[in-house]
C-alpha cells in the first residue's frame, strides 16, 4: 500500500530551499510576507469576495453609524412593508424570490431578489441589514478582543514574575466561563441596548486564547539576542516592547484575531438564534434564520439566504486567516512546482520565469 509512500525525495528538498532563498533575497520581512500572502490563492480570492460583500451590503440599504451614514441604492428598507407579490411563484405561494441569474427572460434582481417574508417585508433589505450587523459585531469583537489580548499578553510575557502570575490567573478566570454561557447572559439582559454594546461586551470575554499566545511569543522573543542588544544600547522598556518585540509578534496577533473574528460571527448568529443576541426590531442573520426556520418546507428562501451570507463571510475570514498564517510563518514553504524545480538550478532562469 502506498499511503505512507513519501512524495518528496530528499534531494528535491535541498533544491527547494535554494529556490526559496533566491526568491527572498534582498527583500524586507514585510515584503516577503506580502508576497507569500499574494501567492495564497484561497486567501486572495477571499479578500476579494469579502471586500465585495462588505461594499455590497453596506451600500445596498445604506447605514447610519454614529452620525456618519449614506442612503442605500436599494428601493426598500427593513421597515417598508410592500404588498406581497406573486411573481414567479408556484400557485398558492406569495413573496417568492425574483432573483434570476440565468441570462434571458427575467434576468436581474427583480422586485424582491430574495423574496418577501410573511408580512411582505423585502427580504433582500433584511438580509443586507443582518449582514451589516454581523460584520459590525465581528469587527468590534475582533478589535476589542485583539486589543485586550495583546495588552495583557504582552505585559505578562514581558514583565513575568508576579504580574504574569496575576494576569494569567485572570486569564484562567475568563476561560472558566464558557463563552456561550456568558454571551447568553449578557445578550439576554443587555441585547436591547444595541448591537455595538453587545459586541463590546462579548469582546471583553473573547481575548483569553490570544493573550496566551501573545504571552508565549513575548516569553521567547524577550530572550533573543536582538532584545539584549537593544537593552545594552540603552533602549527603554517601552521602546523594546513596541519596536522590537511587538513587531515580531504581530503575525501571531493578526492570525489569532482573524480566528477570533470568524468565531465571533458564528457566536453572534448562535446567540441571536437562541434569542439572546440581537433582538427585534433590529435584524441579524442568526435572528432571521431562527425566525423563519419553521417555514423551510414552504418558503425555503427565508432560510437559505441569511445562512449563505453567514457561511460566505465566515469562510472568507477563515481563508484569510489561513493565508496570513502561511505568510507569517517563516518555516512554511510554499509548493514549488516541477517546472520551477527543473529551472531552480539556474537562478537566472527562475527569475525570468517570474
Amino acid at each position, binding site marked *: 500500500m502506498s*499511503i505512507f509512500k513519501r*512524495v518528496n525525495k530528499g534531494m528535491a528538498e535541498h533544491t527547494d530551499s535554494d529556490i526559496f532563498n533566491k526568491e527572498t533575497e534582498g527583500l524586507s520581512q514585510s515584503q516577503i510576507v506580502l508576497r507569500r500572502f499574494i501567492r495564497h490563492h484561497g486567501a486572495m480570492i477571499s479578500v476579494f469576495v469579502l471586500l465585495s460583500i462588505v461594499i455590497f451590503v453596506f451600500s445596498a440599504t445604506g447605514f447610519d453609524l454614529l452620525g456618519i451614514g449614506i442612503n442605500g441604492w436599494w428601493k426598500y428598507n427593513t421597515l417598508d412593508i410592500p404588498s406581497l407579490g406573486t411573481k414567479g411563484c408556484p400557485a398558492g405561494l406569495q413573496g417568492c424570490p425574483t432573483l434570476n441569474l440565468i441570462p434571458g427572460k427575467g434576468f436581474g434582481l427583480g422586485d424582491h431578489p430574495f423574496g418577501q417574508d410573511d408580512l411582505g417585508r423585502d427580504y433582500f433589505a433584511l438580509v443586507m441589514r443582518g449582514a451589516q450587523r454581523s460584520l459590525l459585531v465581528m469587527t468590534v469583537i475582533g478589535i476589542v478582543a485583539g486589543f485586550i489580548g495583546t495588552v495583557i499578553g504582552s505585559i505578562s510575557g514581558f514583565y513575568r514574575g508576579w504580574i504574569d502570575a496575576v494576569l494569567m*490567573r485572570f486569564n*484562567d478566570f475568563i476561560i472558566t466561563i464558557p463563552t456561550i*454561557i456568558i454571551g*447568553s447572559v449578557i445578550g*439576554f439582559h443587555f441585547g436591547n441596548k444595541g448591537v455595538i454594546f453587545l459586541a463590546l461586551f462579548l469582546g471583553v470575554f473573547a481575548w483569553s486564547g490570544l493573550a496566551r499566545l501573545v504571552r508565549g511569543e513575548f516569553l521567547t522573543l524577550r530572550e533573543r539576542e536582538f532584545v539584549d542588544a537593544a537593552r545594552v544600547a540603552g533602549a527603554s522598556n517601552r521602546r523594546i516592547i513596541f519596536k522590537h518585540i511587538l513587531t515580531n509578534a504581530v503575525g501571531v496577533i493578526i492570525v489569532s484575531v482573524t480566528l477570533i473574528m470568524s468565531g465571533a460571527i458564528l457566536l453572534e448568529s*448562535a446567540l441571536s438564534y437562541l434569542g439572546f443576541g440581537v433582538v427585534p426590531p433590529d435584524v441579524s442573520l442568526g435572528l432571521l*434564520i431562527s425566525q423563519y426556520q419553521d417555514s423551510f418546507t414552504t418558503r425555503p428562501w427565508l432560510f437559505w439566504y441569511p445562512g449563505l451570507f*453567514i457561511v460566505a463571510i465566515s469562510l472568507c475570514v477563515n481563508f484569510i486567516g489561513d493565508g496570513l498564517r502561511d505568510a507569517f510563518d517563516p518555516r512554511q514553504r510554499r509548493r514549488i512546482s516541477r517546472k520551477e524545480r527543473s529551472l531552480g538550478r539556474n537562478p537566472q532562469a527562475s527569475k525570468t520565469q517570474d
Partner: protein
Amino acid sequence: MLAYIGRRIAVLLVILFGSSFLLYNLAAISGDPLEGLRGSTDPKAQAQIAALIRHLHLNVPPPARYFLWLKGILGAFTGHFTLGVTRDGNPVSSYLADAIPTTIRLITMATVIAIIMGIGFGIVSALRQYSRFDYAMTFVAFLMYSLPIFWVAVLLKEYMAINFNDFLVHGTISPLWIVISSLITGLFWAALISGDRRKVQIVFAVAVLANATVLTILSATKWFTHPGLGPIVMFILGIGLAYGITFISTGLGNRAALLSAQSMPIIALVLYYPVQYFFTKFPGALTILLMLAITIGIAVGVATYFAKIDRGPVIRTSVITSVLIGILFLIDKLMKTWVPYINTDAIHNRPIPTISQSNSLLPPGNFWFTFLDTVTHLVLPTIALTLISFAGYVRYSRGTLLEVLNQDYIRTARAKGLTERTVIMRHAFRNTLIPLTTIIVVDFAGIIGGAIITERVFGWQGMGTLFNNAIGSYDLNLLMGVFFVTSSLAVLANLLADLLYSALDPRIRVVGKK
C-alpha cells in the same frame, strides 16, 4: 508532583469562586424573577411572590445571596451538599442528574467519530501536503468550520432525514445515483493513493467498479429495506479489518500479528450463532459489556499464543480487530431488529426522527427496540456535531504532523532505513498525539456547554435546555447549577490536559527540578 497538583487545585478553586461570583451577580442584577407575577391581577400572585421570596431568599441582596448559594456547595464537606432549589421548588441537582446523561449521550458518539475521522483525514492530508486531496480537505474543513450548527441541523432535517425516510419506502437506488456515488468514491480513493498515473487510474477504476457492483446488488436485493450482515459477510469484512488494522498497527511483515488478527474473524464465524442466542435470550447492556470483556479476553489469549516475543503490538492489533468485529455483531443485531422496529405503530416506516431524544410511543420493555430507537434519534445530531468539530481536528492534526515531520528525529529514523510506515506510525504519529490529547480533553469539556444549540434544534432535554429555561425564567439557581457543572469540567479538563501533557512528553516539566 502532589504538591503541584494541590497548589493548582487551590488556585482553581479561587478562580471558580471568582467567576461564579461574577456570573451570579451579573445574572442577578440583570433581571427580576418576580416580574411576571408583579403585574398579575391573580389574587394568588401575592402569595406566590411571598413564597418565591422566601425559598429563593430574594430579600437578600445578590452579593450576600451568592454566599448562601456557596454555603450549599461547601456543604459537600459536611454532607449537606445542595445547589439550591429552582423556582418551582425542586432541587437543582435532580434536574442536573437527568440532564447530564442526556447531554453526554448526545455528544459522546459525535466526539469519538470526529476525533477518529479528523485525525485520520488530517494525517493523510499532511502526508499528501499540497496535493489535490490536501487542498480539497482544507477547503472542506474551512467550510465546515464556517457552518452555523443550527443552519446545518435544519438542512439535515429537511434533506437527509425526510429524503432518507422517503427512500426507505421503496429502498432502491436509481442508476444515476449509483453512477454519481461510484464516481465520487473513485475520486476519493484515487486522491488518497500516491503513485504514477497508471496506478491512480487502476485504483480509480477498481473503486468505481466495486462501489457500483455493491450498490447494484444491495439495491436489487432490497437490502436497504431488509438490512442484515449474516455470518458470511461479517467474515469477509472481518478478514478485511484484520488486514487493515495489522497494516496500520504493526505492518504486514509481523507474521504473529497478522495470524492473530486473522484468527479473530474465524473465531467470530464459529461463535456467530451462540452470540445470536445470547443476544435474544439475555438482552441488555450488561450482556453487551460482558461480551465485550470476553471478546477482549479471547483476543489477548490468541495474541499471547501466537506471539512469543514482543507481545504488546500483537495484542494491540488483535484487540482492536476483535473489538471492531464485536461492533459488527452489534450492527448486525440492530439490522435484524430494523424490520420489526420500523413496522411498529410508533415508527410507522419513518425511522429517522427529526426531533426529540426518544420515541415515547414505542412499546416499552424491548431492549433492542429501545437501543435502536436511541441510535436513530442520535443519527442527525451526531452528524451535525461531527461535521462541526471534525474540521478543527483535521486542521490541527495536519498542522501538528507537518511540524513533527520536520523534526530531526524523523530524519534520523529515515536515515536508519526504517520503513516509511514505521517512521510515520511509530515516530511521527505518536508525537502528534501529544498535543492532540490535550486539545481533545479541553474540547470535550467545552462541548458540553456547546451542545446548547444542538439540543435546542433537535429538542433534546439536556444541559442546554436547562440553561435556556434558566435564562428565560430568571431561575438563578438553575443557571448557576449548569454553570457549576460546565465550569468545573472546564477547569478540571485544563488541569488534566496540563498533567497529561507532562506525562506524555518528558521534555515538559510542570514541577521545577531541585
